[in-house]
């Protein structure tokens, strides 16, 4: 199968092809440059592999959580491509993609934390095994002092991934103590998304273009309603 994946949920802008399991990836550090870089990167990646857009079987994207604007750029691009090509979409959690990036060579449980601003973190716990990423709990957004870890086997060690671990001082001591090893620089990449999307594809998780929506996690921001509404 041929799958194009993209991620614009964080500072990076990345695109990847998954050609029957072989990943070809391009990554640029492009804060606030996504709208300039994403289309040229897609065009170039396809050109390098001598592929036409119509050769693709499916599209994948980092569906969040992450920068709201970035999520929507990715969703908008993937919707446009999938709708125009008549191909299905595989949304992938950016926390799960980060878990894979952090634990690719080194299986085990991983707790991913992104800085969600407003003194909160986006949080997801996973088990990575044989390149598969199993969510252990539902993803959420909450203040660092309200975080907790699910129970795992006694001899296993948690790995912390993502820049949200910079807020470690504000996390409960039990969480910090359980997670001694940390990869602060781990971020979602289109390559990891392309791998996870392939599994989802085989599991029949592909959806229609119109259903390709961001997952913000933060849905109640303090927008002030008019009295009585």
């Amino acid at each position, binding site marked *: 199968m041929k799958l194009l994946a993209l991620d614009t949920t964080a500072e990076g802008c990345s695109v990847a092809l998954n050609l029957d399991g072989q990943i070809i990836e391009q990554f640029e550090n492009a804060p606030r440059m996504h709208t300039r870089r994403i289309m040229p990167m897609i065009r170039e990646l396809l050109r390098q592999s001598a592929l036409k*857009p119509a050769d693709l079987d499916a599209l994948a994207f980092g569906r969040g959580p992450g920068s*709201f604007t970035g999520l929507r750029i990715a969703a908008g*691009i993937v919707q*446009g491509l999938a709708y125009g090509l008549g191909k299905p979409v595989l949304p992938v959690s950016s926390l799960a993609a980060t878990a894979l990036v952090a634990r690719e060579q080194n299986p085990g449980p991983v707790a991913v934390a992104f800085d969600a601003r407003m003194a909160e973190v986006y949080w997801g716990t996973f088990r990575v095994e044989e390149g598969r990423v199993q969510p252990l709990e539902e993803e959420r957004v909450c203040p660092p002092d309200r975080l907790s870890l699910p129970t795992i086997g006694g001899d296993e060690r948690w790995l912390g991934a993502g820049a949200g671990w910079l807020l470690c001082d504000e996390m409960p001591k039990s969480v910090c103590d359980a997670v001694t090893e940390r990869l602060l620089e781990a971020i979602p990449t289109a390559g990891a998304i392309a791998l996870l999307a392939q599994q989802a594809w085989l599991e029949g998780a592909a959806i229609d273009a119109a259903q390709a*929506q961001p997952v*913000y996690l933060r849905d109640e921001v303090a927008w002030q*309603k008019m009295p009585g509404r």
Partner: protein
Amino acid sequence: MRVLGIESSCDETGVALYDSERGLLSHALFSQVAMHADYGGVVPELASRDHVRKLLPLCEEVLSRAELDLSSVDAIAYTAGPGLIGALMVGGSFAHALAFALDVPVLGVHHMEGHLLAPMLEPQPPEFPFVALLVSGGHTQLVKVDGIGRYTLLGESVDDAAGEAFDKAAKMLELGYPGGPQVAALAEQGVPGRFVFPRPMTDRPGLAFSFSGLKTFTLNTVNAAKADGSWSDQTRADIALAFETAVVETLAIKCRRALQETGCRRLVVAGGVSANRHLRKVLSEQMGKVQGEVFYARPEFCTDNGAMIAYAGCQRLQAGQRDGDRIWAVPRWPMAELPPLDALCEDGLREPSN
């Protein structure tokens, strides 16, 4: 050339299909007004979220209404600005990717040029040159129009836009958002002459507008009525009428001046406030007296819509203008900076090649 037009600059998602030979084939609009009404104004983050949900279904609706499929789309136009940056990016990203998938050209167009050209979709379109009064939620401008992309700004508001003034007056009169249509409806019950509001900046030469003083005047009138016990539905209607009359007459006076200064006989009125019936009546009478002509878009194309974007985009795409790979989202963008139709634009209208 058949152009799919996409509008997502603010709180309406609009899509339309325009054919250079056959005219407008179909259009569809989703207004977020009800959602934002709870907040008393547009919440940008909520607006952006809704555009991502509605854009694709609206495209499907437009194509199915026209009984066509995507293969019949020759080019794509989207609103590149001005507007809310996050909302603009949604339409731009979708438009660029769709154009790439279909292998057709794509162009980011100017929202106010869309408004300005909307009357071209009517059976009797205006000919160039003309004077345009752009009156919307974010703009109040008089522009001399010599052709597409040949705009000279004659005057604009130094503070609030006319539509914004309507929206703020509506709040003071305890009406909902958006206020324009509700103030206009309430004004119909008003008794003329009970309140007289100023006609800002008409006592001196020039074509600039100012509506913030009118806002203060409205607030003072409302507060005085509340203090002296005369606050009632009738009083609200009387204030609405006095406010509307002041805005309408101010706009009319400036239009008359602009026409005199430029020697034009044609006036085009575009943007959300141009749907106002009172404004249309006064301007039509005024133009009749001087044997001039006035043009409007049909009311549904006065406020934001996809049809005006498809039309404006079609004119420029037919002239060969197009975007490169960059998705344009330009929150502030003076319309007079637009290139003319014969400029070479291969990387969008913001950066003409020569």
